């Protein structure tokens, strides 16, 4: 009881501390200089209709590479941990999903994949991008997996997709040093016509690679987790 009230007190003090941020906050009138710079120059420099995408993929591309790395690490660790089979372990079958779910998911699946691809390919034009598209693909796999627990995407295919897209991403980044002004510079390709699919330099390619990679990784995580059984010994 004492501990509970201590914790509650702590949380209250913590809220109070955060509240100073609220009380110090003044709604800004204008954009700060970085934002101003992006909103003014992004179109001419990067050429993506979605400024957020330009920031994510190009200006702050290093963050995004780190982000991809985080997902890669998580997927690898989860894969290593969960795939470590002990010998002589019987394969436990999970319950089958309901008929409706499995039918629905089978219908939805291709659509979801296409939606995912659409989201990341158009990342530089519309909201969304590699991560969102990848997540949509992952969700599609998830639906299928829920409906049919024995469903598994070929791990080999996933690995290939993941590795190749990842390596391509890094190589595109590296090309930026040689062909353009710096690592991850999207101007290794022409900026193209603003607002078209094939514009904004390398952004569509990078975002597609991210989309494929994230999609493959998330699918991997999902299948790994779904197929593990707890150690019942």
């Amino acid at each position, binding site marked *: 009881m004492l501990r509970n009230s201590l914790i509650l007190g702590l949380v209250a003090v913590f809220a109070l501390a955060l509240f100073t941020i609220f009380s110090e906050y003044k709604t800004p009138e204008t954009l700060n200089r970085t934002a101003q710079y992006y909103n003014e120059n992004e179109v001419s420099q990067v050429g993506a209709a979605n400024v957020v995408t330009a920031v994510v993929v190009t200006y702050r591309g290093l963050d995004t590479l780190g982000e991809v790395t985080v997902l890669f690490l998580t997927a690898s660790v989860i894969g290593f941990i969960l795939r470590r089979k002990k010998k002589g372990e019987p394969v436990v079958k999970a319950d089958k999903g309901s008929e409706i779910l499995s039918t629905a998911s089978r219908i939805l699946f291709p659509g979801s994949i296409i939606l995912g691809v659409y989201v990341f390919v158009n990342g530089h034009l519309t909201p*969304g991008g590699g991560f969102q598209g990848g*997540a949509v693909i*992952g969700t599609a796999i998830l639906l299928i997996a829920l409906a049919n627990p024995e469903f598994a995407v070929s791990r080999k295919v996933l690995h290939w997709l993941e590795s190749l897209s990842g390596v391509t991403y890094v190589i595109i980044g590296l090309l930026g040093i040689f062909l353009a002004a710096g690592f991850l510079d999207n101007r290794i390709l022409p900026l193209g016509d603003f607002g078209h699919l094939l514009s904004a330099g390398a952004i569509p390619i990078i975002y597609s690679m991210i989309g494929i990679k994230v999609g493959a990784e*998330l699918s991997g995580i999902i299948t790994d987790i779904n197929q593990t*059984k707890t150690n019942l010994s």
Partner: protein
Amino acid sequence: MITFNIVLLIFLSVATISGALVAVTAKKTAVAILASGAISLFASIFFLVLASPDVAMTEAAIGAGLTTFLFFVILRKTESHHAEK
């Protein structure tokens, strides 16, 4: 428009915070997971209102979708054992 947004946000805030309270205090883990999924959904509406469609999409797909799913799977794995015990 702004006033509509404000009303919407107040409603959302109340919903999110009650959701959070449920998520944190719920006895059943499953309820807590559902509540946290709901929070993510509400949050993505927050993001939409705050002019951040990209974030909203991410939150909806990853926070509300995948995370919730992961929680459920892990829950099932850890509880299946208790059931047998």
